[in-house]
């Protein structure tokens, strides 16, 4: 019994050691840092300031602005991603096997590009005067200021994100769909169930664990959105797309205010933790 116990730890060790050194360690270091004022370029020495950084963050209009932008991204991106990915997966599931691979690869392909490539490409697509989209829209007399208008910038980033990331959840849903035993569907059709009935009464409930899991992962990921925004708008126009992670990045690596950046990071961590806890609870209850 005792031996088994040890061998378990041994198997987990490679991951555990790296996890402790590169995740838990920095996490705690950051927590400590958030109680210090440590401005690398200040002529003043670093010093313990208690909860001062948190107090500053809670009174900082840019924190709220960034939180607002982040929430906007989450609300716009997550439901559309999940819904479209599910639709695509269901559609693909109906395609005959020989052609399915081709379409699946096609949809997944953008996911293989790095965010810098996607960003550069879409920045050109979106250019108001000289971009691709407006060139196609010009015959209809439309000229959309994709990235230079506060109203369009965030939806534009979400659109790009959909194109870029849809392939991931789509693959997961497709795999889950193919795991639904064919016998269930046969039984249902023998009992005279229509296609929508089969989908909503059999397929969807069986997909629920996968759906919830994807939702949690997507929300956690969306709260940490950075790459797309940073590449496409740098947080503009008028800071309307500067998300929390970008604000943290700016604070730490451009303004070199390490303590303050750590404090905002921990506030973001708190927000994500609350959401995740809530969702995992939801998952448990539904079981």
């Amino acid at each position: 019994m005792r031996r088994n116990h040890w061998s378990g730890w041994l198997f987990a060790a490679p991951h555990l050691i790296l996890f402790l050194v590169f995740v838990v360690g920095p996490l705690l270091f950051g927590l400590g840092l958030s109680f210090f004022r440590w401005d690398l370029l200040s002529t003043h020495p670093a010093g313990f300031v208690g909860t001062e950084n948190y107090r500053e963050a809670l009174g900082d209009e840019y924190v709220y602005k960034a939180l607002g932008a982040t929430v906007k991204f989450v609300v716009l991106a997550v439901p559309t991603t999940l819904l479209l990915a599910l639709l695509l997966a269901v559609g693909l599931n109906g395609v005959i096997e020989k052609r399915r691979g081709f379409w699946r690869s096609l949809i997944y392909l953008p996911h293989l590009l790095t965010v810098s490539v996607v960003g550069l490409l879409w920045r050109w697509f979106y250019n108001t005067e000289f971009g691709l989209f407006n060139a196609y829209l010009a015959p209809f007399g439309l000229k959309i200021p994709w990235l230079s208008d506060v109203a369009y910038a965030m939806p534009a980033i979400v659109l790009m994100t959909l194109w870029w990331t849809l392939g991931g959840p789509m693959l997961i849903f497709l795999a889950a769909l193919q795991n639904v035993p064919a016998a269930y569907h046969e039984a249902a059709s023998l009992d005279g169930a229509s296609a929508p009935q089969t989908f909503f009464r059999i397929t969807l409930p069986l997909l629920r664990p996968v759906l919830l899991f994807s939702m949690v992962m997507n929300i956690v990921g969306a709260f940490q959105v950075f790459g797309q925004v940073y590449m496409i708008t740098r947080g503009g126009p008028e800071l309307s797309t500067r998300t929390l992670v970008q604000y943290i990045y700016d604070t730490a690596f451009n303004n070199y205010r390490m303590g303050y950046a750590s404090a905002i990071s921990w506030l973001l961590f708190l927000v994500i933790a609350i959401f995740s806890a809530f969702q995992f609870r939801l998952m448990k209850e539904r079981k």
Partner: protein
Amino acid sequence: MLKRRHFLGALGAASLGAGCSLRSQGPITIRFWNGFTGPDGRTMLRLVRRFNEANPDVSVLMQRMDWGTYWNKLFVAGLGGRAPEVFVLHTRTLLRFARAGFAAPLESVLGDFPTDDIDENVWAATKIDGKHYGLPLDVHAMGMYYNKKLFREAGLDPEKPPTNRDEFLNAIQKLKKPGKNGEPDQWGYVFTNAETCTYTFLNQFGGAPFNTDFSKCTLTNKRNIEALEFCRKLISDNLIPSPENFDSWIGFRQGRVGMVFEGIYMLADLEKQKDLEFGGAPVPQVSAEKAVWADSHNLCLKSGLEPRVQEAAWRFMRFLSDNSVEWAAGGQIPTRPSLRATPEFKKLTVPSAFATQIPFVKYQPQLPFIFEYLTEYNLAVEKILRGRASASDALGAAEKRINEIILRESVSPSAPNNGETK
């Protein structure tokens, strides 16, 4: 101060890991980092090779990465005590790296270097608290690129680009041409980089964002407001399009824009494009003062080097400066008048035209919080140019925040009751 050092030291030690110091008998290794990832990088690499051949006792290893990555990497390396022996900094960031203690003042190594052969204002801009922290290699002044073909088509003389406000506005109007479906298709001028373009106008109007000792932000100064109202009026009169954050440059390359103000570093980009007939000229002077935005690449020396390594590093820095006319071939303007007087440089028409502006180039202010300042400044400029706020309101909001930052910077964290410590 000591306390902060310890703090930095602790982090340095933690992240150092395998930091080892090789002090063998072989050639001295000088690591040289920069952000020259374009054609300028290839020119630089050639210079490094030539230096290595001529100096067998030194081996320079050059590493280049894009500027964004570069700043972070350099700063983190500096924290861990692993900064390269020689590195490149822009003039506007010298103060930050000097403050952090990563760059050494050059006074002790200069020796017989002819500092009077560096443009006076460029050399002065590298001075922090009385000491020079960088050896300027070039001045990347902003200049005007213009499309000669569009000039001809609009009935303008392609060899006489505008030099003052009337000529500039006249050219903008003549070059503007509506497109097929009622939308303006061709523009006389666009803001490519709003930050640097408006900074040029601001200085031409005699404005300044700070008082002389940087203790107070003065963005609401009457002249700053006038300058930005001038910029806004170009847009509200529908003479030029509303600014697109970065990519108006593509419009110029596509031959749909008559004039743009951009840095000399964009020249290589244009020269690749064979079908574009363009010229380079000084930026037109639209108000009382002569001024254009500029920045410089400076060679910096790591602080705390042992004497023989420092000597080798300096020898390399000096070699680059002495040979910076070759650097010009990579699309830069050397900052040594003697080199600009050579026929080699004079035959480079666009750099020569831009170089005439060197006596009145304007650097961004030297601030430890330069990034926060520019964030506020750009936010205000965006609002003004898009007509979402008046110049005085937007600049007022920025000024208020920047003055708060100045106050924050002046307060020591270890003295919470800072009011009394004075």
